[in-house]
């Protein structure tokens, strides 16, 4: 889904796209190694704050937005490609595997587009928490892409807790 996501909008920043490609490749490797398992990729936006802790300056990351993308790969009996759990297409039993596959892809594409619509809608609805733009070249906000390992089942909760401890990120107003 990530690579499909990338097809929709490209920001034009070479470095960013390169980084995204690398992460996607990593994610695909992870998914291929752990089939039939819930996989997740996380995109986080943060601010860097210098904190004086024990007479040392530490740069701390304050995450103000995080996106979790879950991908469940279902192994198809005849094809090796995975598909997300989004697609639920009723396929005639008489259809060939190829047609079935194209149906699934079409359904996946439609649902993916719908998801992107939702993302845009949500991004526009919630803007108050966005910090001042740090004026970076190319990408405006600091971000990181992480692929939580399976052992990090409580990864999301850890992040949430960290956010609570460090307080609210700088508000726009």
């Amino acid at each position, binding site marked *: 889904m990530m690579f499909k996501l990338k097809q*929709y*909008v490209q920001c*034009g920043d*070479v470095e960013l796209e390169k980084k995204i490609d690398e992460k996607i490749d990593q994610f695909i490797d992870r998914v291929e190694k752990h089939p039939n398992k819930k996989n997740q990729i996380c995109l986080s936006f943060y601010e860097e704050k210098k904190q004086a802790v024990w007479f040392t300056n530490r740069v701390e990351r304050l995450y103000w937005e995080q996106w979790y993308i879950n991908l469940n790969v279902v192994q198809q009996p005849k094809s090796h490609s995975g598909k997300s759990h989004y697609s639920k297409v009723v396929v005639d039993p008489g259809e060939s595997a190829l047609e079935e596959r194209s149906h699934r892809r079409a359904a996946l594409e439609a649902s993916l*587009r719908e998801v*992107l*619509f939702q993302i*845009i*809608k949500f*991004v*526009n*609805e919630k*803007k108050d928490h*966005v910090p*001042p*733009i740090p*004026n970076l070249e190319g990408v*405006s906000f600091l971000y990181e892409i992480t692929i939580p390992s399976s052992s990090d089942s409580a990864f999301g909760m850890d992040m949430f807790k960290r956010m609570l401890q460090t307080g609210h990120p700088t508000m*726009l*107003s």
Partner: protein
Amino acid sequence: MDLQGNVQVEYGRFEQILSQFLSKSLHIILDSRVPSIRPFGRSGDLLLSAPVKKSDKWFNLVLGDRPAAIDNLNFCHRSLVEPMIIDIVLVQEVPDSSYEHRPTTTLGLGKYVETVLERWVVQYEYISTVFPEVGESSASYKKTYKKSIILLRSLYSMMRLLPAYRAFRKLCLSTQASDFDINYKVSSFSIPYSREEEEVMKQYNFLPIDAPQGRLSISVTYRASLSDFNLETSTTFPPQIITDYVGSPATDPFRAFPSSEKGVGAISFPLRGEQSPSSTPFHRPHSWTCGLHRISPLTQPRGGSPPVHRTSTMPYDYLSPPTNTYGPRYQNSTNHRTTSFDEYQLSPPFSPSPPTYFSGGNPLKTRMHSETAPMSIPRSMMGRSPRYLSPNLSDPNRNSLPPFSPRSTKYDPSSQDSASGIRLSRKSDSFRAGEMNSGMTNHCSSQKVLRDSKDDSGRFSGLLSSSSSPRIGFSRSSSRLSFQDDLDDFDYSCPFIVDDVDTSDSHASQNLDGKKGSEFTSQTFSSAKKSQDAAVGALVHMLRTAPPLRQDSSCYSSPSSKTELEGEVGAASGFFMSRKRSSYKEMIFFSPKAELGWSAKNPNSLLVGVIFVRKHN
């Protein structure tokens, strides 16, 4: 007072932000929908090495050079309070029952139909008349600016999610002409949709941004599906490059025609919206190009499409886009014409090089009675194979010949026999099958003559010439059969032999054997539709009864015979070039009008019909 002054200053800054917001949103929308507005044409690739202008850095969204059209539109936007309504319009050429409309359309189909794909409304809604506090306004416009950064990025993403983006990408990626185009109209008011349109339109509203004394909003109504429009650019066979063929200038310098500056830009498509500076009388509706476009509307370079607004009857405001919007399109089309092989798909093949010829069979007869497949010229004449001048002058070995018709049983992309000569367009069969009018008959007859289905060894190549005056436009092709054998099969001695004028005898005789070729002018056959058989028969008879040719290597006949021929074969008239080669005498005939068409300046193609007669002594 300072307070009042500060408020004014703050509001002035907000106005600047608002103005830039409108420009940026317009730029985003048009850059994602209208290929012609891009400064780099269809590719639209940003020159990453180019320094980013300050004006482009607004809202942290670099889009590249803003086209002048957008700046003009923004300048014309009288009031910042008025909404900016941008219509993205799909322009399609559709058949028109009314005949007189045809010449006005690019592809010659009939008329243009415009459909609004999307309607974007970008506006600043002025809500409050109360001036805010100084501090409040200062923070307010900064907030507005930062939120508009996100809004514009959302807009950028949305542009690529909506259905119209696919159509845009098709236009951008298509290297050839397509039967649709996307244009835009900017206004401060809009004509309401009809009921049918409303039913198919969906709406999406971005969350408005609070702004000083109002708010900024962007909304769109768009067509949910474009499947009704059949927006498919044509898929053509990959252009086949014939690197060697009999009669190419490379092998026969004498025959090399002065290459056009545009290479094989001498295409048979007249761009209606664009005329070459030295357009010739050959740019006529009933030329090859006209008919070709009718059959396949996908071959017209985009540059030919007329500005939408000229044909539009919608009463739009002053904000109708200036015609300079279409400038880049024409430039692109020129570039496309010189480089794209696909444009030759329907056009009779041409090249400024010597013509090709038929060999074998009885072309004149077969064309009457059968829909034959185009023949290919074998590669057996490798050593002497002339080469067609390619569209790209820098590579004279490239061949711009279109592939054979798909109905051709002899067509084989990998065939060794199809190296030389020009193949007829693969659509040529469809000419006969499709809708035809009198203007099309040129094709038919010409195409028919060029075909020889009976003789398996027959080779031919049609030739289109569009470069500078060609005394002779030939190319040669070899044939497995000797020409003598071919003659025996014919009831009349005939056409389609091409030979050099000044090449050595040995060379010529080598090439003469079994070589045939033909060129046909559209003009030659323009009026011959009804009397085709009679005309050819008369020509043959005339040639047979003609006095013996002189023994000189080359000579031109008197104009009298020229007139005679004109009477017989319609517009066919011209010079006779005769020479004698060993036991053969041949007569090369072509229309003087063709000479004009060979002008290098004329990008329009021209068919030169050449009839060769060989006789045994």
